[in-house]
């Protein structure tokens, strides 16, 4: 990286250490009240911390072995939006339990017909007295079955163009009429849900910001990210890194197959390149500069990289890569080293993620925009290539649904 963290005796470090001395086993609520969960937020919820200050806090907490409460859809998405557009009552009610992860949040944005074109969403919210009545379907919602609240965008005015008639709500997940169905994925597990709304009545005071102004609020959210030093794995931050794979292959004696040796070099090259881009983006964030085009490119490269890493692992393991993780019975986990052992020292390719990782990696180029969408984004937004005209931008949403023509 092209920056250095403050020295060991920096007063910001000393402040964290002093706090930790008086809170040796801090609870989520204590960490939240200290401002350490979202230090970049304004007081009293945060410390108005600049990026270097954020990294210092991370560094000191990591050194003390303290884990921050995990509530990504809350602190990453819902919280910043409530900070910008919420009422004081909403801030008082929701932000503290959110930071403390005492109440878990999910995000109710995507729909079956509104993924890459989110503004096309069709879930309706109709004001009826002092409640909004919501009907429709959301999809790709992470952890909806565990969440206490969701941030919901729904259409409140179908007679205006699609970006205009959308409103933003806080949605308690225990309201009658909400049905959550987990999606069983290719890995056999489930991370995503479908959420169905049937005459769900949301009190009008859970509207965030102005009626019909939800699209602007939803976009505000995206600009406000906490910086972090963590490298993250190739599966959207989870799982192993490309370097970990390469090191394991080296430690177990390398590979003799000429094509696989080429793949090792490619995976390693991609790892270095992605690390450079990440450092570049972090440096830009620290200098409070606008991110360059590399931010748009990173996802494209990273998702393909994830697939390459998992393909290489699978190819290196050989036939035993067919097996998934054991689920009891007489399967011996250490057996996965046998085929590897034939061509190198008797050692395993260690990582519980290899089994599921390959299957999960297939979703990388689908989730968050398919490869085609990603490249079109680069083509149109970064390079300014002309795009197909979206005639529906100027029509009312309802009118656009009627013609249903090609976009």
């Amino acid at each position, binding site marked *: 990286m092209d920056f250095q963290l403050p020295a060991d005796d920096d007063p910001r470090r000393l402040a964290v250490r002093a706090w930790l001395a008086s809170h040796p086993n801090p609870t989520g609520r204590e960490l939240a009240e200290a401002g350490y969960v979202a230090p970049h937020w304004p007081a009293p919820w945060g410390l108005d911390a600049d990026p270097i200050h954020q990294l210092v806090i991370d560094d000191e907490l990591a050194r003390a072995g303290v884990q921050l409460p995990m509530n990504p859809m809350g602190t990453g998405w819902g919280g910043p939006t409530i900070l910008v557009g919420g009422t004081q009552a909403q801030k008082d009610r929701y932000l503290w339990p959110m930071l403390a992860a005492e109440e878990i949040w999910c995000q109710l944005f995507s*729909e079956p*017909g509104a*993924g890459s074109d989110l503004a096309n969403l069709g879930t309706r919210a109709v004001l009826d007295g002092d409640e909004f009545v919501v009907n429709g379907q959301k999809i790709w919602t992470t952890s909806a079955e565990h969440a206490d609240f969701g941030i919901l965008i729904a259409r409140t005015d179908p007679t205006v163009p699609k970006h205009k008639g959308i409103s933003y709500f806080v949605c308690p997940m225990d309201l009658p009429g909400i049905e959550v169905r987990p999606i069983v994925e290719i*890995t056999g597990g489930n991370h995503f849900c479908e959420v169905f709304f049937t005459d769900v009545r949301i009190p009008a005071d859970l509207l965030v910001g102005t009626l019909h102004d939800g699209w602007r609020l939803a976009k505000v959210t995206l600009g406000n990210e906490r910086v972090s030093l963590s490298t993250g794995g190739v599966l959207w931050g989870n799982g192993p890194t490309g370097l970990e794979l390469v090191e394991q292959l080296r430690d177990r004696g390398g590979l003799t197959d000429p094509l696989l040796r080429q793949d090792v070099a490619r995976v390693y090259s991609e790892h270095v390149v992605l690390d450079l881009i990440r450092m570049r983006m972090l440096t830009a964030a620290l200098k409070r500069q606008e991110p360059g085009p590399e931010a748009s490119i990173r996802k494209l490269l990273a998702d393909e990289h994830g697939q390459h890493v998992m393909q290489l692992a699978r190819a290196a393991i050989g036939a035993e890569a067919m097996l998934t993780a054991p689920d009891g019975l007489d399967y011996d986990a250490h057996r996965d080293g046998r085929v590897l052992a034939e061509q190198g020292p008797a050692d395993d390719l260690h990582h519980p993620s290899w089994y599921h990782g390959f299957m999960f990696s297939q979703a990388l180029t689908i989730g968050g925009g398919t490869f085609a969408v990603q490249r079109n984004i680069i083509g149109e937004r970064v390079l300014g290539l002309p795009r197909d005209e979206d005639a529906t931008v100027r029509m009312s949403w309802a009118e656009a649904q009627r013609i249903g023509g090609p976009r």
Partner: protein
Amino acid sequence: MTDWMAAADVAAAVAAEHAREGDEQRRLPAPVGEALKDAGVLRMCVPEAYGGPQVDPPTMLRVIERIARADGAAGWCTMIASTTSLLSHYVEPHRAREIWSDPRHVTGGVFARNGIATKVDGGYRVTGRWLWGSGTQHCDWITGGAAGDGYNGSMWFTPDQVTFHDTWHTSGLRGTGSLEYSVDDAFVPDDLASQPQVTGALVDSPLGAFPDMTLLAIGVAAAGLGIGRHALDAIVELGTEKKPQFSQRTISQSGVAQAELAKAEAALRSARAFLFDEVAQAWDTAVAGGKVDVASRGQMRLAGAHAAEAAVKAADTAYTLGGGSSIFEHSPLQRCLRDAHVVTQHIMVAPRLYETLGKLHFGIDIDASMI
């Protein structure tokens, strides 16, 4: 003469219906096993001399492909059972009749010489454990490779001699039930201890002149081709369905999807044509009494590895073009992807074969037993 493709169609319909069930149970559902027996496709290599159908390899590959197109696991089991039935050529005729004359008898097992054989009076005592016993749970006779005391061949066991281990926890081809099995100090009489490399074929049939390892490899490839075909069928179906809720454009209307589908079609159909061309040539040679030489076996193996790779590419393309719809566990796009990627892990078509086959094309001598 049996219309093999018509018979395969009937069995394929049953396999398609139970595909999800097999995927969940990690073994072939009983109705599928029965349908495959009814169609006669689990013993296609039994020679006419033993009352078998003695199907020619090109037809056999088409049958495997057809059933795999309905369900990869059912196609795989068809392939394993039929290629195992080729071993009937190397078993003492009276025993071969006992094992294979009944048209509903099914055989399966593994060639690898994992068993240890000890000579005893009238036969051998065998202890061993084998990986990847696709469909063995449904077999009437089970084979396992063994060596020891001068013996090196394929032993034949009855189901009561065999213990099955629940080890088949996989991402793909779950319905094949390719678990591990073992025997512990089992007695095998001399006339069930076949030694193909020593005796050669014991019955006159052109299939006996067809190389057995190659037959397995092209069978694996045919299963892959069926899975790849299924994936492309599925994306065309999904892509042209009425527009999904709220969406204004089907997948089939995207220029990228069109171009990628055409490329995947071209690659899969090309790989298939190459495989069937090479197999037809080799079979003509075998029928004419000639020897299927190393060059011809090399071409078939090359075509097999390439076909498996093309099938994976087809499944990958279909899955990616399918977008969000693909990742639901019971989407056929998803099952095809999992199944295809298991096919390429099979040693018979694994990419590392390319180096060996490249030697052949450069005119460098290779150990012919490797292909």
